[in-house]
């Protein structure tokens, strides 16, 4: 087992280990982070949503973006699966359709990092009862 021999050892270890708890730290304050919801109903899963979700989890982590990734049920856009909803703190949620690994990569690079819109946005065609 690792011996912590100095303050520097402890600091290094702390940094390494903090990543492991990020999931929990963020969960207590989801509004402060980028939130990605992957539609994972039968239609989504059948179109490969699970792969997209895994990709998002890994890549956002690798690219040092603090994000909360969760799955959700069917958003109703079954024709455009896999769909994901991305909420950047302080902005309205945006839904993207036909998200494969390449699209997911584009969304991270352009929309999540720089706020630039990319193709494939599904316009909001409903109102949720939360806003009423």
């Amino acid at each position, binding site marked *: 087992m690792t*011996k912590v021999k100095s*303050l520097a050892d*402890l600091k290094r270890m*702390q940094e390494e*280990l903090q990543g*492991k708890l990020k999931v*929990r730290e963020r969960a207590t304050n989801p509004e402060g982070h980028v939130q990605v919801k992957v539609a*994972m*109903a039968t239609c989504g899963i059948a179109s490969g949503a699970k792969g997209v979700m895994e990709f998002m989890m890994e890549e956002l982590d690798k690219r040092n973006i603090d994000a909360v990734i969760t799955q959700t049920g069917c958003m109703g856009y079954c024709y455009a699966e896999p769909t994901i909803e991305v909420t950047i703190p302080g902005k309205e949620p945006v839904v993207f359709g036909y998200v494969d690994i390449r699209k997911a990569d584009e969304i991270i690079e352009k929309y999540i990092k720089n706020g630039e819109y990319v193709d494939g946005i599904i316009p909001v065609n409903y109102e949720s009862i939360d806003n009423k």
Partner: protein
Amino acid sequence: MHILVCGGTGCKSSLSDSIVENLRAELEHHNLEDEVQVIMTGCFGFCEQGPIVKMMPDNTFYVKVQPNDARELIKEHIVKGRKVTRLLYENPVSKESVPDSKHMGFYRKQIRVALRNCGFINPENIEEYIARDGYSAIAKVLGEMTPQQAIDIIKKSGLRGRGGGGFPTGLKWEITSKNQADQKYVVCNADEGDPGAFMDRSVLEGDPHSVVEAMAICGYCIGATKGLVYIRAEYPLAIERLKIAIEQARNYGLLGESILGTNFSFDISLRYGAGAFVCGEETALIHSMEGKRGEPTVKPPFPAESGYLGKPTVVNNVETYANVPVIFNKGAEWFASIGTEKSKGTKVFALAGKINNVGLIEVPMGTSLREVIFEIGGGIKNNKKFKAVQTGGPSGGCLTEKHLSTPIDYDNLIASGSMMGSGGMIVMDEDDCMVSVARYYLDFTVDESCGKCSPCRIGNMRLKEILDKIIVGNGTMEDIDRLRNLSAVIKDSSLCGLGQTAPNPVLSTLDNFMDEYIAHVKDKKCPAGRCKSLMKYEVIPENCVGCTACARNCPVNAISGERKQTHFIDTQICIKCGACIERCKFNAIVIN
């Protein structure tokens, strides 16, 4: 994704171990064991609703989960991403389900300092503690501060002992550090004994490393290399987790020789208590650790001067230690900004009794009793009326409606005739008889008195006898005066805290519920209908049809009456067993 399952004693006895097992099996079934981790944490505090399962990252809070629910949780929540509504907490007023603990009345007013890691990390994994800034406080202290500088920070934070007395912690450390000796000791008092209190147990079960780290810091401050935890043997899970924590800290070089490459060495060992209440008193605790009888001795000398094995010793309670690392990490000013003028920081309370949300809470000092009982505690069970709340355990007193707006801190509670104690809060409703409550606590102290000094050994026994007399209806008004006088004598002349505070429940009920005492003595009635001896079974003639069912079932033949005639209960013979009421189909028998 992480699934957190409560592993406190309460939830464990409601089978949270099998919940973990089943969740893991279901994850394997769906090939998700690599993506989703199941972690057993310490207590979430909301014991009323246990076992609790929390889903991260979406922070869904499932309550009253059974092992069989694992399949549905994984299939619905994890695989399909749908919340399992039937396992969500239901707002008792609006009946809506609340998926997130942030929006529950129980959590909204709480600030978790001592419990910061409880229900968040796996207490058996030192790495999770380190990831939460664990052991940074000791690193900071050893690397940047002299012992006196560290003591000054604790002094500046205003931290006071959480075990009951409220003595300033920094001052205690300073006095001990100035006493010269070849060896000194750091002792953790984990002999939590108040009925209904489980704050310290939960801290040790949920975040044992915070106590280990704080004890090492204390050792550096006072110049001790040895720490001892006095823990009651009735806390097997806390003992196990503490042992694991100490072992892990040793392996990581955070306990033992030359901690973090400095020349400071410190190690901790455990001593088990056999569950004697008096051993929570520091001198009795020290004697018990030395292998002697757990009896208190007169102070001074204080342990700071002559404690364990005659050496200078700091004795602090578990919750006090749990606050120490945060003070160094976040600063004394931050800590001092929470709370009231003379009581800084937060306090953990164990809510019990006739309250909706039984559990463990942590609130800033200065929160009112009303907020604690009605907002966090969710009010009184079954919409009954609030009567009193007992704080401070057997040494404390009862507070009533008129105290509800009192901000809770050390000094206010004492001014109201109770005390902080270690943090037990037992709530009573209109059905509780306050004379019986006083007798209950006295029964406890009589049982737990070590017998060394006569005021406590004999005096409290006499108090109990007088209460017994009142409860059976033989009391006189002189008895009430006698209770007061005797209580004053016991308080003045007992040797230790146990005896000095034992009459408090009697005095505070006398002050606040004199009418109930008078009802017992003069009218021979128990207003709450609790005292069996004062109850009378009577027949309501209008309702009685003379079916003889009651008379046939009375085990002592106390009921007489002809068929189709009104019956009569002879109260001299009646043993108040209630068999007649059960048999009567016409509601013709009542208790007065």
